[in-house]
């Protein structure tokens, strides 16, 4: 145990001290901060007011949407076909359509727009709609209670019974009038973001593991070391060490990005901008799987108009599950792939020879990202289900699905299978690795690898 710790320590320290690590650690947050700060800055510069046309067939929400500094609402009285036809000619930024419902209160709305709609707008609309519906429900409940005083009901029960979530589908209307679904919903953003993050993390640091193994082989130090430790210990030490490097870099990014954004926006003129920046930050941070408390503290701000809507939307995401799952899939997904990368590194003599073995590893990863586009539109469909269960694709796909809400049983099944997959690949990789690292100057085929796996 002491030896594996020594290995982890070496792998970690040599990498963290590298110049490339320090450069990446500084550049990463600068880039990320720029992607947050620049759009906000530009938004304040243009000072453009966006108008949203509201076509409310139910009539419940008339005059309920309040104009703010940069969003204005006006109400239409027509049918949806004409409204849509007029929309492309008008200067309106978006068209909100709340279809008529017969029995129940409306909980669906469609937001048409030419360009993609800001999350703030959707969140605000969602916020207003759900509040309005909750108010109506509450009134109904109260009058019910007045007529029926026999059954005492707690406030909690009432609050729970009126709790409403509103779905807003955002549709893009193209120049040609064609409609397509767009993805501005916060859970889509969260899902995509964490899925892509896991994908990059696996690729970047998995490749580092592989390069590390190749380096030990080409520098011929490997036999010196495995006369002191078991090959498996060396392999696991490297995988864990590199994983910790990745985790360190990642945490530094989050902290530094947060720091930079806070500092930069504090120099910006308007107070509300600073606030929006911090909140946008928080939403990203939470997507990355940290700062649980931020979600809780945001409760206080949810009554605020505009940006508060984002927090409202964020609250609809189950953060403890989201963060827990993110950390799990992030780490175990990395471990599973890193073992395979280590096996490849052990089997070849130089990085140029890795191509033929890389294919089976990269295919499931790239497939996950390709399928992500499709899965985000249908996060509960059978394709999404199978991809989020299969261990080689589940780290990315499950993270995309989780913000939409996945049954616990599926999450647990996926986690168990991923753990089994991790044990399986590590066992397999260990066997390839221990034979491979002692083979020099030999072109290895898949047939050869299969033999190595079967060696005693």
């Amino acid at each position, binding site marked *: 145990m002491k030896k594996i710790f*020594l290995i982890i320590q070496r792998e970690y320290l040599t990498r963290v001290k590298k110049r490339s690590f320090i450069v990446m650690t500084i550049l990463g947050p600068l880039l990320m901060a720029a992607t947050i700060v620049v759009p906000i800055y530009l938004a304040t510069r243009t000072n453009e007011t966006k108008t949203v046309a509201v076509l409310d067939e139910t009539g419940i929400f008339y005059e309920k949407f309040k104009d703010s500094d940069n969003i204005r609402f006006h109400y239409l009285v027509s049918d949806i076909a004409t409204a849509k036809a007029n929309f492309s000619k008008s200067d309106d930024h978006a068209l909100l359509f709340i279809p008529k419902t017969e029995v129940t209160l409306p909980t669906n709305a469609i937001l048409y727009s030419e360009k993609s709609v800001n999350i703030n707008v959707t969140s605000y609309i969602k916020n207003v709609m759900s509040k309005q519906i909750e108010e109506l429900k509450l009134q109904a409940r109260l009058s019910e209670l007045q007529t029926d005083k026999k059954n005492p009901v707690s406030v909690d029960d009432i609050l729970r019974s009126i709790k409403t979530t509103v779905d807003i589908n955002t549709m893009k209307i193209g120049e040609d009038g064609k409609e397509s679904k767009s993805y501005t919903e916060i859970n889509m953003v969260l899902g995509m973001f964490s899925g892509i993050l896991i994908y990059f993390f696996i690729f970047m640091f998995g490749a580092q593991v592989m390069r590390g193994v190749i*380096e030990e082989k080409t520098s*011929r130090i490997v*036999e010196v*070391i495995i*006369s002191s*430790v078991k090959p498996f210990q060396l392999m696991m030490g490297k995988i864990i060490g590199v994983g910790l490097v990745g985790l360190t870099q990642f945490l530094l990014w989050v902290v530094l990005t947060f720091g930079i954004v806070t500092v930069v926006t504090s120099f910006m003129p308007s107070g509300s901008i600073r606030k929006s920046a911090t909140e946008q930050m928080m939403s990203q941070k939470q997507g990355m799987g940290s700062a649980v408390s931020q979600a809780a503290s945001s409760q206080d701000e949810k009554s605020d108009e505009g940006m508060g809507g984002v927090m409202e939307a964020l609250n609809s995401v189950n953060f403890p599950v989201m963060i827990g799952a993110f950390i799990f899939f992030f780490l175990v997904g990395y471990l599973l792939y890193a073992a395979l990368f280590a096996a490849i590194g052990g089997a070849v003599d130089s990085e140029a020879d890795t191509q033929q073995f890389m294919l089976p590893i990269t295919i499931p990863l790239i497939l996950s990202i390709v399928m992500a586009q499709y899965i985000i539109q249908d996060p509960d469909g059978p394709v999404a289900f199978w991809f989020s269960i299969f261990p080689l694709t589940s780290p990315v796909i499950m993270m995309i699905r989780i913000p939409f809400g996945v049954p616990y049983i599926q999450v647990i099944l996926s986690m168990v299978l991923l753990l089994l997959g991790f044990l399986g690949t590590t066992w397999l990789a260990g066997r390839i690795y221990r034979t491979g690292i*002692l083979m020099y100057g030999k072109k290895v085929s898949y047939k050869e690898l299969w*033999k190595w796996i079967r060696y005693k």
Partner: protein
Amino acid sequence: MDLFSAQAVSKQYANHKALDKVSISVPDNHIFGLLGPNGAGKTTLIRIINQIIAPDEGELIFMGRKLQPNDIAFIGYLPEERGLYKKMTVGEQAMYLAQLKGLSHHEAQKRLNYWFDKFEIKGWWNKKVEELSKGMQQKVQFLVTIIHEPKLLIFDEPFSGFDPINASIMKDEILAQKEKGATIIFSTHNMSSVEELCDDIALINRSKVVLSGAVRNIKKTFKTNTFGISYNSYEGTLQSILPASFQVLSENQDVDHRHARVKLPDGATPNDLISAVLPFVTIYSVNEQIPSMNDIFIQAVTQQTSQPETKD
């Protein structure tokens, strides 16, 4: 007493048998030469001793009991394929490898200071390995091999990459390790270093031990009662003076003298040779032709190779 012995160790790879019932015994505090042509199975055997790979069958006895995983703390191994992390400094690297051998941080530091002083390489501590020459790297490797004062030292081609001066420093150091009580297994192709250093040898060819024992005894059994003789020039051949049972193997002439190698019949002594030629020539020297390890090596290997293979 044997510090280490292998008994009927076999190792089968997919396509060939690397070791076929190989038995060796390494006496305590001896230098044991493990010889053999390329691909004979030496490295496989060494890796098995280091528990890098497991044998298919056979027993390994170390310090009077079965070899155990923890015994690697008592073994120091300098592999033939050796290297160091290029980007690490010499000091960090030496500390790392010493600690992997089970030394505490403090103890490793202390011993490395001693050795760096002794080898006069103190100034290298903060240098990166890639800045060192190959010979310098070898020195560092040698040093970390012996740093934990192992009971059994295994050197695979230890002198490759050393210039003659450093090679002799290393040779002295190996002998010094023996003085201190270490037992050394020494795998090499360099037969002259075998003659200088080894007390015992085992010769492996085609996965089998073909020759083993104390160097002295082996040489005795390979002696053929052959003598070299130098004399002044003579008209006829040497064979014409000698009785027919004396066989002249070679005869040649340099600027000063003629030289011949003569195989004597069983029971004959150099005195018989001298008395036979004395009336005809002036003798300058007579000496016994002791077979070199090189000759023995070639003879043993070619003998076995010329035999038909009895393998499956």
